[in-house]
């Protein structure tokens, strides 16, 4: 039962982390205190790691670039990919870092103030790491959907205002 409620709370937080907790309580038929303590628990246990805004880059900070970089690395005898991956992840420019199956090992998402900075990150920081064998950098041209949010909103379809 607790698991189901936690699922429901996580679902609501993922839809809209800013939703007033009193609304969540009403939606889930819980008391406000129960919701608050459940969220506190999710945060304390590191299940919920943070809350962020989704920014439309065509409207704000348009100079900023996002690079999606495939990285091939040599795993270490002790620690495999983890140590090197976390080394890469620690760079401030790196927003996300995933270990993947397939033709390369790490997929990293880098945000930089402009193209020059992004290039500098790849050339000077990433490629110079011993374990990094090769990189392939792709720049984002346009975003259609991000974390479930569409960047261009369709207008809501019209409905009759009263119907049987």
């Amino acid at each position, binding site marked *: 039962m607790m698991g189901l409620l936690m699922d*429901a709370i996580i*679902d*609501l937080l993922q839809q809209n982390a800013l939703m007033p907790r009193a*609304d969540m309580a*009403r*939606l*889930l*038929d819980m008391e406000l205190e129960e919701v608050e303590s459940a969220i506190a628990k999710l945060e304390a246990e590191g299940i919920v790691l943070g809350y962020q805004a989704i920014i439309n880059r065509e409207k704000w900070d348009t100079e900023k670039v996002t690079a999606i970089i495939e990285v091939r690395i040599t795993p270490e005898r002790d620690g495999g990919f983890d140590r090197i991956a976390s080394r890469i992840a620690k760079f401030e420019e790196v927003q996300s870092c995933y270990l993947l199956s397939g033709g390369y090992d790490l997929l990293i998402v880098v945000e930089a103030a402009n193209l020059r900075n992004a290039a500098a990150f790849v050339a000077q920081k990433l490629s110079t790491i011993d374990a990094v064998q090769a990189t392939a950098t792709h720049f984002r041209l346009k975003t259609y959907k991000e974390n479930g949010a569409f960047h261009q909103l369709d207008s809501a*379809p019209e*409905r*009759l*205002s*009263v*119907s*049987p």
Partner: protein
Amino acid sequence: MSIRIADHVRDIPRSGIRDFFEIVQTMDDVISLGIGEPDFATPWHIREAAIYALERGRTGYTSNLGLPRLRRSIADYVRGKFGLRYEPLSEILVTVGVSEAIDLALRALLNPGDEVLYHEPCYVSYAPSIVLARGVARAIETRAEDGFSLRADALEKAITPRSRVLMLNFPTNPTGATMTPEQWEKIAAICVRHNLVVMTDEIYSELVFDEGAHSSIATCKNMQERTVFLHGLSKAFAMTGWRIGYACAPAPLIEAMMKIHQYAILCAPIMGQDAAIEALDRGDESVATMRREYERRRNFITRALNDMGLECHKPKGSFYVFPKITSTGLNSREFSMKLLQEHKVAVVPGTAFGPSGEGHVRCSFATGLDQIKTAMERMADFVAAPR
């Protein structure tokens, strides 16, 4: 010249909903809880399947009964979800929404003067559809204290020698009432004893909450042979505008209904039928997502209404709540009208669903949470205002 309208058509009163709709249309900034259709657009995979079908040029008539492929999907779906077996070639008819199927079944079953029993408050079309089929509409009142379920003793009392059909709609629009298998057993026994044909409109059956299971009267002993099972895609799959419903019944009745359908309608639109195949075959996930959303809104709106002092039972199904508003000293129509004029929230007077809806209003929660929340704030102000 003045054109003479047939008596039985002229005598049908205008829908109470229609009246209300026309007033709402003239106003700005109204939040409407009066809408009887999902606020979701049809899930994308279903729309996409329909687009693909159009691209392939599937734009013609279909078999009068509906696409054979769709009837197979319906048979599988109804067997899986309701435990009912129907033969796709002879026992299933695809119609233009459940509304058409209701009309066909009534016209195929009734001789002039035959009585049709139905529980009230109920969907607005039942009584007029019966009258248009030259039947006699006999309402059985259901009550808030019973959760608006149909009581066996009330049914028994309403039956006369002319009673021929019992019309059912659970979960119910507008009350959200549901029935348990035990309650069905009692109703079914009466139907068998009095040789009633049952028409059961189960359009809200996917929208049953609290992990509860929907049960159909058609599964009771000796019932399938005397039941017209009516269902459609509108509510569960958010496909109101596609107009696809279906009837499942014994072959001779389907054949009779098809006779009317083929001359009046020919066939349901193929675009809707193609979309329906995708919905029935692969739509379960989408339905589950929407159901979860409705369930949460139901929790929200039920609590908000009770908190403002309007007694409201928590419906186990549908997307309507049917709070009691007598504590305000107003009747259903006054309440709805004043709420609309003074606070710009549209709800539907309970009396639009029959006289036994007096003292209640219908609020739909097929509307986004933000809107519901604002509507509840406005309604609370309205209820708290001295009068």
